[in-house]
């Protein structure tokens, strides 16, 4: 009967493994069109990564960070600059980078594939690929506005790590984490944990780990609502065609 016992044990083991695989191997459903909440859509006037409403204390800037934050001239916040005075990259139709782009009111779409997750952003028509095939970061980095992203699933969440951003360069070539001008360096490591908190709501818990700009890693979050419309084309450079007075700042 010992053969029978082994068979039973084996079956139990296989059933157990199968159950574990079912529970932990399921990919959470995150696909769809999502949009951050702005004033008229039930959210704050404009969401930001670091504000008293979201975190209890200011980001822990290093000396390097303080000096650069002082040079930021955002068009929002406590002392907003005018569009002509501002050095916000977005006013030149330059990319906002991550995680700044999440804090725009424009929607984005998540497409989950077996070996990667694709994010399509309406703002600036840019895309982002998060590799989930187990690869490592490239040994020789290519620094970009949106960095290089690898990810994996943990229970109901997609966890993303992004490195190799183009960091803050100069007063006129700012790189911000959000529209209030919090700077980042090319050492930024962005960690995101994305999950559905209900059928209609997506949550992204964000950790900023940038030892050049911040003394310690710090956290924030942003939520997005599900949208039933399709993404469409948004070409920022049409700005150059505009004949509206405010679209023609004197530079």
């Amino acid at each position: 009967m010992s053969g029978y016992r082994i068979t039973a044990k084996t079956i139990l083991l296989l059933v157990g493994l199968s159950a574990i695989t079912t529970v932990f191997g399921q990919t959470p459903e995150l696909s769809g069109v999502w949009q951050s909440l702005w004033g008229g859509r039930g959210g704050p006037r404009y969401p930001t990564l670091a504000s008293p409403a979201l975190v209890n204390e200011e980001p822990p800037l290093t000396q390097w960070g303080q000096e650069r934050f002082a040079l930021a001239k955002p068009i929002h916040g406590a002392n907003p600059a005018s569009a002509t005075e501002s050095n916000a990259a977005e006013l030149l139709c330059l990319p906002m980078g991550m995680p700044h782009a999440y804090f725009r009111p424009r929607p984005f779409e998540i497409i989950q594939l077996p070996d990667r997750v694709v994010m399509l952003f309406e703002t600036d028509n840019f895309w982002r690929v998060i590799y989930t095939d187990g690869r490592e970061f490239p040994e020789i980095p290519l620094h970009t506005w949106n960095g290089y992203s690898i990810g994996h699933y943990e229970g109901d969440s997609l966890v993303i790590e992004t490195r190799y951003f183009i960091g803050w360069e100069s007063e006129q070539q700012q790189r911000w984490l959000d529209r209030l001008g919090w700077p980042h360096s090319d050492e930024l490591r962005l960690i995101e944990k994305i999950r559905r908190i209900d059928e209609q709501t997506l949550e992204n818990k964000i950790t900023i780990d940038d030892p050049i700009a911040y003394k310690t890693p710090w956290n924030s979050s942003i939520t997005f609502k599900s949208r039933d419309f399709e993404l469409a084309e948004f070409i920022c450079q049409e700005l150059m065609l505009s004949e509206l007075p405010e679209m023609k700042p004197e530079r």
Partner: protein
Amino acid sequence: MKKRNVFIVVSLLTAITGVSIEAHHANSLYDRSTDITISGTVSKWQFINPHAGLWLDIMGENGEKQEWSAEFQGTLDLYRHFKFNKDTFKPGDSITLIGHPARTGGPTISTRIVIFADGSEVDVRSAPD
């Protein structure tokens, strides 16, 4: 319809909560604490991003024609929420706009409400959730 006057109705609208403009210009050239109303004839409609623009020819009280411009939000909010597109306004259309005036006093506004010739109104800042 000969009353194409620039009748500037300044109303103290302090309760501008729930505004869903894209807010390119928090400290912009527009005075968001007041509204003015302008009526005239469409001369041009630029349905582009990041802000659409409408131009009106307006007859002043002295009979002089004046060109005003009106800023709108970008094309996709206008399309998704209000079904605006490149054909929403045609040259010659009679239109009334309510919006925030320029701080400089110049002939331009940031549009809040559009009143079409048939009397229908669209509050272009009221994007449903």
